[in-house]
């Protein structure tokens, strides 16, 4: 997995609340059994005025300069709610996003970000608004800086602290392979199963009883 340590980049504000994963990547844009080739479908229904013909919607923030080069998304409450599709993160990462800052996230989307080296940053709504206003003032100059080791966002003349779970932080900083990490704990998993087999034998039945 790709590491995330720190990033200083253009941030694009898209503050509407409850942006769901169907919006981030419509199901029609998930045409194949693959993790790649998804970025053209990202926000398709908002990004294009004619989706099949791919006619660009010049009003949409990610189609306007300099936001076309953004690596950070500033989002509203409950960003990434809805469907569990990891394609939402795959599409955003392929497009260029490495971090999303929002007051809250859909829980599954949050986990999917971490698993793909994209940093989800939870900041209070007032902070997200203040950063957005500052960015919009001069988007190409007012770059947002995120530093994961110190858990700080530097923007609008402030240093905003954010919290993140220990294991998620390690995963991102080290670019660890989570499955590999867990497989090292195989003895603990086996010990759990041995004990659980007596406590809950019905868990371990194989096939219709």
């Amino acid at each position: 997995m790709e590491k995330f340590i720190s990033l200083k980049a253009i941030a694009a504000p898209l503050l509407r609340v409850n942006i769901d994963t169907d919006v981030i990547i419509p199901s029609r844009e998930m045409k194949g059994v693959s993790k790649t080739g998804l970025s053209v479908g990202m926000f398709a229904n908002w990004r294009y005025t004619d989706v099949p013909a791919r006619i660009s919607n010049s009003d949409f923030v990610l189609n306007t300069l300099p936001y076309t080069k953004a690596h950070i998304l500033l989002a509203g409450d409950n960003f990434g709610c809805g469907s569990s599709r990891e394609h939402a993160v795959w599409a955003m990462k392929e497009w260029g996003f490495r971090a999303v800052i929002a007051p809250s996230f859909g829980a599954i989307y949050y986990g999917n970000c971490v698993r793909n080296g994209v940093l989800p940053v939870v900041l209070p709504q007032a902070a997200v608004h203040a950063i957005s206003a500052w960015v919009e003032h001069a988007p190409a100059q007012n770059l947002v800086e995120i530093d994961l080791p110190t858990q700080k966002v530097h923007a609008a003349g402030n240093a905003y602290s954010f919290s993140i779970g220990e294991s998620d932080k390690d995963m991102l900083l080290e670019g660890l392979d989570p499955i590999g990490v867990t497989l090292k704990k195989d003895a603990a998993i086996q010990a759990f199963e041995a004990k659980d087999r007596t406590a809950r034998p019905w868990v371990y039945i194989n096939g219709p009883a």
Partner: protein
Amino acid sequence: MGRTLIDKLWDSHVVTDLGDGAALLYIDRIFLHERTGSVSLQELKAAGRPVRHKEHVFVTMDHIVDTFPGRGDKTLMPSGTEFITSTRAAATEAGLNLFDVTDARQGIVHVVSAEQGITLPGFTQVCPDSHTCTLGALGALAWGIGSSEGEHALATKTLAVTKPKSLRVTFNGQLGYGVTSKDMILHLIGKYGAAGGSGYAITFTGPAITTLPQENRFTICNMAVEFGAFAGVIPPDETTFEYVKGRPYAPKGAAFDTAVASWRTLKDDADASYDREIVIDCADIVPTVTWGSSPGHAVRIDGVVPDPAVVTDANVRAAMEKALEYMDVKPGQKVEGLPIDAVFIGSCTNSRLSDLRAAAAIVKGRKISAALKKAVIVPGSTQVKRAAEREGLHDIFTAAGFEWRESGCSMCFNAGGESMGEKWRVVSSTNRNFENRQGPKTRTHLASPTTVAASALMGAIADVRKLG
């Protein structure tokens, strides 16, 4: 201090503590479907990692598979067949339990998992699908994950999870005439917003929950994710045990009795406390429908579309304004009587036998409005379909003018390639009214199956209580 049901479910699955409120949790059952299943399985195979306990992994075909009578692997979606065949191949090769397109056990993942007795009280279960929380209605901790976490669960039988905060939602009183469990959950989300449960695992309890039949309980937990919650559970009781008893994968005989004795402890201790409490009086709940493009945009059937002008938060207001435009409704407009183009009864929210019976009771001997361009009923599983046919429900529906389909997700979202028409207004028994979900610019109004049935007869959003 006493423990909550959620604490008990959590504690009994901790393999190791990961610190900072996180733990490596043991996962009892994993379900996959053809939309995301093959990606996980192919990645695992490429990494040379076997599936641990393949006998505890189940795969069904529901999302993309066609629901037209006589269906096979072909779908309206040009590349849909590839999803089906690649999932079949990967599942077969890995030796997983596969409920294939023509299998009698096939159906929507969260419907068949309960129906087959695969999910049991006290279990942990995951699936790369956000509505996995449906199964919390059996007293299981069940939640949706992404594909990478799916791979992790398949390879290790565990997941690293940060423990959510706990929220208890108590439904007091009794449901009034024409009010269903769908209205209960829509009422809750309408009142507290689509992010109202964000960061929480929810226990649904109270007299109006304990008196609900098991099938109707699934509807409540199904929409926990639409409330932003990690999961939603209902303490298992005699209704649950009776439901589970005799199901194919459930323990039998003495083993069942031992299990039930253990399941009886799956409840809050008397002195357990929650991080947050919500109490709802069911006397306040009437049939409820959504007016906008978020499940939180819910309103009483006798109510009006709200006015964003009264909302202080600018972004909430902006989302409401966008929803008004998308849905082509105006503030102050009555929702009852809005003319509709189509109806849909199905999905993991409301497609079980009791849902179909309730809808059939409304339309029996009547005809749907001639104004409808489409009226579709999709049973939640092949088993539900056959049971409904044994009772003659399909005849009632087809005589009224509905299409009667094979089981699957169908137009709950347009993944299989079939969709509602552009800008159609649809009343739907599903769980998401997001933009474009049921078709291009389709305007979805969520409602109970009985409200959908009543609306089908009227050709407009209808109050089921007014139907004699």
